[in-house]
């Protein structure tokens, strides 16, 4: 009986170990695909979507990781193919500078308002 138990434990531990080995890649695929926009579905990331496009994207991301590409290189690859729109975080450029600066201005402006109100009281 003990032997059977032991074998069972060893078996399950190796399974978990093997699973973790594989999971390493899929975790990264998840992480990257969450940051990529699914171009044919509205308002979904590649990670969320089950469309043909998104499924293929995930396979391709997995392949790229196996080729030894890192996260940045993979984003660059997709940007090169589909343009800036595919990544959720826009780069700071002439077109997107307002997008980045406006919240900052509003934040500072709001802060000034609050400080003035508090100091008046």
């Amino acid at each position, binding site marked *: 009986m003990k032997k059977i138990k032991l074998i069972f434990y060893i078996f399950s531990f190796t399974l978990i170990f093997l699973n973790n080995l594989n999971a390493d890649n899929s975790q990264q695929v998840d992480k990257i695909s969450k940051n990529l926009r699914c171009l*044919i579905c509205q308002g979904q990331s590649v990670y969320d979507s089950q469309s043909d*496009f998104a499924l*293929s994207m995930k396979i391709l991301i997995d392949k790229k990781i196996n080729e030894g590409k890192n996260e940045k290189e993979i984003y660059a690859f997709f940007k090169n*193919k589909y343009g800036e*729109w595919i990544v959720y975080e826009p780069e700071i450029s002439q077109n997107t500078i307002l997008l980045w600066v406006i919240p900052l201005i509003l934040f500072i402006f709001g802060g000034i308002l609050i400080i003035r109100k508090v100091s008046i009281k």
Partner: protein
Amino acid sequence: MNKNIKFIIIILFSLFVFFIFYKGLEKPNNYLPEKNLNKIETSLVFKNLNDQKEIILEELINNNSFSIINIWASWCLPCRDEHAYLLKLRNLNKIDIIGINYKDKKSNAIEFLSDLGNPYHEVLVDLDGTKSIELGAIGVPETYLINNKIVVKKYVGPLDDIKLKEIIEIIKYEKN
């Protein structure tokens, strides 16, 4: 006086917001690649549909003249609609059409071609859709007009009379 100014500001602001949303309504919802992504990945290796032979895309693209890459699938309805236009293009005998069979069953693809006719000079297989992504496609059908490894024109969605005319115009123009 002060109240009036506030009132005007509120109205102006709501008009501004209304205007922005109204403008947004007119914008197309569908994504279209904003820049013309010119270069095409020609080093991709495909399998042929019929004999599963491996072919590099580069070998199929004629460097001196135009060729067309068309991504299709037997399960895709718009592909059936555009098939007639591809046949018309084929009948012009001026341009090589390379078909990429996207996420399809081999038997269905062959049946599709025998039913509707085969406009392709070569049919390549993309089983998991990754190669189409490397080409920059987002789905089926999609058509690229290529010259010298550069995408001259990219059509997302099925071909129609207008697009066909445009393709023929471009080919003619270049030939003269």
